[in-house]
């Protein structure tokens, strides 16, 4: 990884997002993007200020909210990587993102017009598909390499990083922009509410009184680059993507497998792919949605896969601060995991006040904690039993903290 970019409810860039996360600030607040009064809940980790002033207004008008967030985060990541796109071979630079909601807000507005017997605006349908952001990034930055969008719900951008890793190792690209950008929409807000999975207050992962998730929006973009190439150009190498696990629960469309067996398989696959042992892991950025079912199943999965080490490894759910950004969650949490590795500090889980006896690991509830970290796991579990766990490690190898 040679560059990171982030836009979240806590900041327009990596630095301000990271500072707010370490300070334990909460980005979950009243939802104003659409009128939430008819929904069961009215809060979200909404982004109020999209740092996209650099995009030409005529072009910006044709983009979705997710495109604008994604381009802003990608621009930050590219700048941080030191890549001069004007001098690179564009056919060797790809875009592989996790996508979901994309331009759905615009489609919803159009559909509302149609249901009212009015004529919709065709241009509002252009960004409906999840792959629109991937095409937009390649268009905006003039890239001509592999393009792909993973649509595995809440694990989408976790899997996308795995695909980016495969694409580089198999010689299909030298550089890949990966991660994801996902935004609020009525469908997802109403959908999780219809399943009674949303907490009306800011979510409290691993707490005995947790009531569900807080939906959010975010963009987290990472520049993946082939090692030899990054070294030759003197790039700032932040960490190494060591490997990933991707598996099916084959259990249920919405419920996680409660014993943790399924999640443990994903974690074990990630460790095997990364050639790491449980004892090498210094921090886990958990999926930690704060639904009653996820947090206990995920805790069980960590105990099964990490054995005696599970109780010693600091684990946190940064969703307690930036919400659950669905298909972008793996990307933004990948960014956060790399920052934890870089700064040797585990960000906290906030709102965890009354620990659940079934969730009995070390969730860093007291505030950010300095810890020695050589390798990190970041977990994403999704509807459909689509699970992905990615592993990052210090670069170069053997660079112990």
């Amino acid at each position: 990884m040679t560059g990171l970019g982030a836009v979240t409810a806590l900041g327009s860039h990596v630095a301000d997002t990271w500072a707010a996360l370490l300070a334990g600030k909460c980005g979950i607040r009243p939802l104003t993007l659409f009128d939430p009064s008819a929904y069961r809940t009215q809060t979200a980790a909404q982004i109020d200020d999209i740092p996209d002033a650099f995009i030409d207004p005529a072009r910006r008008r044709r983009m979705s909210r997710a495109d604008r967030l994604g381009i802003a985060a990608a621009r930050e990541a590219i700048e941080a990587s030191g890549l001069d796109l004007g001098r690179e071979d564009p056919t060797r630079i790809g875009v592989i993102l996790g996508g979901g909601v994309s331009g759905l807000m615009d489609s919803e507005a159009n559909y509302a017009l149609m249901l009212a017997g009015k004529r919709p605006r065709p241009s509002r349908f252009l960004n409906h598909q999840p792959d629109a952001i991937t095409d937009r990034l390649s268009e905006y930055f003039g890239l001509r390499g592999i393009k792909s969008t993973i649509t595995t719900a809440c694990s989408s951008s976790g899997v996308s990083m795995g695909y980016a890793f495969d694409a580089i190792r198999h010689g299909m690209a030298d550089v890949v922009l990966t991660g994801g950008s996902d935004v609020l929409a009525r469908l997802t807000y109403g959908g999780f509410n219809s399943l009674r999975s949303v907490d009306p207050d800011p979510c409290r992962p691993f707490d005995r009184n947790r009531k569900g998730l807080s939906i959010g929006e975010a963009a987290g973009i990472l520049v993946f680059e082939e090692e030899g190439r990054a070294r030759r150009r003197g790039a700032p190498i932040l960490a190494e993507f060591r490997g990933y696990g991707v598996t099916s629960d084959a259990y249920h469309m919405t419920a996680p497998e409660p014993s943790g067996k399924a999640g443990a398989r994903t974690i074990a696959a990630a460790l095997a792919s990364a050639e790491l042992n449980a004892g090498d892991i210094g921090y886990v950025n958990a999926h930690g949605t704060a639904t009653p079912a996820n947090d206990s199943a995920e805790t069980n999965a960590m105990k099964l896969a990490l054995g005696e080490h599970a109780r010693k490894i600091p684990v946190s759910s940064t969703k307690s601060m930036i919400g659950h950004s669905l298909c972008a969650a793996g990307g933004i949490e990948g960014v956060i995991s790399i920052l934890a590795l870089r700064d040797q500090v585990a960000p906290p889980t906030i709102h965890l006040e009354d620990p659940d006896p079934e969730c009995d690991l070390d969730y860093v509830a007291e505030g950010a904690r300095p810890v020695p970290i050589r390798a990190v796991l970041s977990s994403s579990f999704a509807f459909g039993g689509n699970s992905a766990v990615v592993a990052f490690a210090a670069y170069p190898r053997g660079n112990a903290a």
Partner: protein
Amino acid sequence: MTVVVTGLGAVSCIGRNTPAFMRGLLAGESGIRAMTPEERAGGQAESVARIDRWTPQPELAPMKARRIDLGSQYAVVASLEAARQSGFPVSERPDRLGIALGTGSAGSGALTEFTRVLLSESPEAAPPFHFPNTIANAPASQVSIELKFLGPNVTITQKDPSALNAAIYASGCLEDRRADAMIAGGVDEWNGLYSSAMDMMHALRGSRRPSGIVQGEGCFVLFLEREDSATERGASALARLAGYAFAGSPSPPYAYADDDAAAERAMREALERSGAAPSDVDLVMPSANGRAEIDAMERRVLARVVGAKPSVAVKQAIGEMAAAGGAQLVAAVSAIAEGRAATVLVNSFGAGGNFLSAVLRTP
């Protein structure tokens, strides 16, 4: 590292399984028909290629079928066909089988219905059971639940070539030993609102637009295995996925990039990776989807890269969709397995500047 095909599955508008699909295709049948007034919904598009008399039985019991969306039903039926043909012992090695499907429309039925109620009645009235099926990953996940396998489970959406994209991802999973076998291809379900939106975006062929696509639906999959693993269990290979390549072109999401260089790069790189010379190609499955400028571009580039070769335009039979590349792959493998070709070039080009090519060869 060699990836081979040991099974095929097809649910199409011209046949509910691979033999029926291939019989129809070779007989020149087409599932493209006139739209009903309801399907037209006041638009200019006139044709569609739908699966009209669908039943998920006998593969899915009626009670079970009612709970899963149409795209998932297609995917389960096609995947079962491919898995049975392969003879892979799923129950003995559930963790070694995975799935990768490409789609452009999976979940559209559930999404439009959930959103319709949410917008026209109230968020609280929207039916919760539809929500998990609004996501594109529902078909691949339903297949994993139905066949009870535990390996990789990935869904990809990247315009028309999504199925080829999924096959390429699956091939990487096999090479990296994340799995020994992968079900790979594409699935789509036709949806009235999506069709109207595509028509408004000038994508569909119709009374006012001679150049454009006709939308289809269905599911087409390959059962892919690493050659060593297939040989070890005594499975016979139908064909080998020998090479593939991507080329991108900077383009807005719904525009067709008229980019000869990108198309040529995809074809040449796929051939190079496959070890085949352009002259070895004895059958072409062109992308040819009815968009005049892109079809003309493809003909130009094919003439330059492989010269005049026999070709089968699969989309004239089943329409265009993200899953169509899966149908081209099934047709290519069938041609090789039946001795009608030895090296097949498959092109799958899409809006948004997405160009993919694959080369299949005799095992």
